């Protein structure tokens, strides 16, 4: 029997008050995610239970009980307080998936500051726009990533502290400070900042169609959504060994790689090493992982690695498998059922929604390729794209929209309330994704409603890549679109015109790829660059991305009446 039991019954009767009661939260009272995920579990007598089993490069392993993560997060919180970090100050976590990242999230939340996790592969430009927008006061990082922060430090007057968690003794520069969790005196008791439901907790950045990345502001009340969805959507149970493969630089990695398992008092595992099928299967076997939350890109890479390799490992511990980031193709669902004896269940949410919104449930009939059904306590519909009214007939494609009111809904975009307000129409939150709903109420993903590229589950703004491309000395103009990819669903493709004096070549192609990789991130790096003499434009000079995209996807080009020189 799954945690959720009968979905239809739950959907009819559930209200968020149930989550409040289960978590002993009284409206108006103190609610602090850091405390809920560590001290509360210890107070319930489970302090000696393993909370985190971490494995790094070369098989190095570290284990933390709930008492350990309580003390470690206290220690980090006390250190930050000692530096003068105040409630609601932004503290960026710019690290690989090392223990300090996970423990740092709790430490920051315990003192009422706002955690700003950023993907450690970001280049200095990507890092700068996010730290500048958030007016971040401190960055916690590793020595290997510190040089990227140093490059932009002079442009960040608000950034007071660059905290290095693995400092090697070399002289530190202005504003730099070393912090070693292992060498610090553990702090047994920390005064938890009395955050309330609407106190800000985390700031996650996401890409927009135009303009700079948007800082999605979440609050401590999100805990209720993350708690319920971890239980009912991911079917996380008390005795599970849970593995969320996502990086906490992205929302899945905090909602379900930190908060979800720990508020439930579950043991979770983290593998901080690059991907290989063998390493992943070995990790599951070694830790007897029971509940595995991953992504379609990884699942397709495992499929590519073949089935022979699976026979080398005992994966019989696996009980529940889920996936997030982009639509999970039916082949992957069927394949996982065949090779693991369990199907990967697709889940759907966004940085803005903070928790799973539409999903397949353990025990419910699965239709491979479907997104599943709305989570209890949420109302999801598909809207007509012109009237913004819900489609009344099944099978019609429209915009996925959600009725605001679930606890983990974003509260605003940081310093960008205007863009936040534009996300709502007729009282619905517009996700920007398109889908249809079948007669049985299952949602079927169709695609994005804008030019945003979803590559391996990560959103990339074509505008940001185009802006970076024209900073390369050889590039005159650029247009960036998605192109299909068997592993990542979509990858970035750039069309580029060159300035006079430059000619297309394989070396220039590679040089531009690396330029973007280092400036923005490996995700934003065009996997293909097509040099062209001209880009399709409207008569008013606007580049028509949709024409280039349609060609890449083998689709109809559509209306070209505004095309220049047509």
């Amino acid at each position, binding site marked *: 029997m799954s945690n959720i039991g009968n979905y239809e019954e739950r959907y009819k009767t559930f209200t968020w008050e149930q989550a409040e009661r289960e978590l002993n939260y009284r409206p108006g009272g103190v609610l602090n995610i850091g405390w809920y995920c560590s001290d509360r579990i210890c107070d319930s007598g489970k302090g000696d239970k393993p909370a985190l089993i971490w494995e790094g*490069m070369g098989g190095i392993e570290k284990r933390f009980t709930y008492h350990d993560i309580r003390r470690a997060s206290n220690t980090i919180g006390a250190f930050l307080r000692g530096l003068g970090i105040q409630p609601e100050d932004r503290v960026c976590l710019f690290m690989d998936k090392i223990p300090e990242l996970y423990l740092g999230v709790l430490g920051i939340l315990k003192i009422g500051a706002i955690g700003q996790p950023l993907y450690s592969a970001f280049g200095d430009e990507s890092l700068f726009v996010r730290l500048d927008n958030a007016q971040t006061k401190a960055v916690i990082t590793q020595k290997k990533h510190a040089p990227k922060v140093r490059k932009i430090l002079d442009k960040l007057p608000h950034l007071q502290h660059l905290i290095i968690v693995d400092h090697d003794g070399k002289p530190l520069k202005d504003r730099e400070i070393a912090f070693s969790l292992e060498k610090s005196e553990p702090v047994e008791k920390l005064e938890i900042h009395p955050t309330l439901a609407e106190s800000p907790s985390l700031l996650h950045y996401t890409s927009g169609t135009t303009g700079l990345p948007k800082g999605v502001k979440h609050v401590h009340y999100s805990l209720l959504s993350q708690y319920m969805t971890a239980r009912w959507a991911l079917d996380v149970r008390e005795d599970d060994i849970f593995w969320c493969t996502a990086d906490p630089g992205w929302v899945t990695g905090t909602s379900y790689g930190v908060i979800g398992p720990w508020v439930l008092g579950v043991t979770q595992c983290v593998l901080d090493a690059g991907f290989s099928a063998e390493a992943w299967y070995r990790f599951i076997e070694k830790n007897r992982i029971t509940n595995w939350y991953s992504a379609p890109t990884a699942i397709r890479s495992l499929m590519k690695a073949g089935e022979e390799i699976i026979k080398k490992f005992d994966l019989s511990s696996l009980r529940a498998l889920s996936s997030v980031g982009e639509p999970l193709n039916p082949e992957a669902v069927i394949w996982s059922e065949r090779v693991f004896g369990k199907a990967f269940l697709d889940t759907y949410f966004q940085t803005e929604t903070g928790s799973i919104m539409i999903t397949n449930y353990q025990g419910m009939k699965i239709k491979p390729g479907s997104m599943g059904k709305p989570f209890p306590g949420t109302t999801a519909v598909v809207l007509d794209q012109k009237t913004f009214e819900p489609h009344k007939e099944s099978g019609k494609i429209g915009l996925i929209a959600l009725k605001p009111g679930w606890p983990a809904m974003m509260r605003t975009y940081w310093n960008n309330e205007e863009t936040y307000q534009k996300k709502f129409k007729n009282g619905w939150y517009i996700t920007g994704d398109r889908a249809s709903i079948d007669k049985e109420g299952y949602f079927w993903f169709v695609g994005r409603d804008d030019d945003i590229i979803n590559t391996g589950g990560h959103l990339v703004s074509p505008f940001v890549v185009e802006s970076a491309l024209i900073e390369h000395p050889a590039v005159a103009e650029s247009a960036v679109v998605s192109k299909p990819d068997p592993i990542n669903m979509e990858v970035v493709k750039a069309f580029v015109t060159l300035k006079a004096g430059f000619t297309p070549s394989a070396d220039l192609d590679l040089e531009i790829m690396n330029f973007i990789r280092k400036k923005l991130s490996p995700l934003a790096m065009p996997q293909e660059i097509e040099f062209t003499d001209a880009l399709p434009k409207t008569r008013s000079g606007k580049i028509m991305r949709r024409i280039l995209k349609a060609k890449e996807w083998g689709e109809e080009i559509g209306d070209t009446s505004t095309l220049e020189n047509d």
Partner: protein
Amino acid sequence: MADEMKETVLKYVTAEYLEDDADPITFDTPLISGGIVDSFSMVSLKRFLENKYKISIPDDQATPEAFDSVDKIALLVRKFTLA
């Protein structure tokens, strides 16, 4: 020739994928499983090898395992330069 190739690849990986003050890597340092080169960046590394050695590496052979160290990359490149 093989050692020269390995030196070239090592130099390229160091210059492109490591920060200035990072610890030096060797021919057998794990690149993919060690988190130095991620799966997206593998595309630019593959492009470098193809440009430099005038070869074409099929996508199904450009696996994380085949790119996991300079030693392994050299084996892969040799396979296609000899073909």
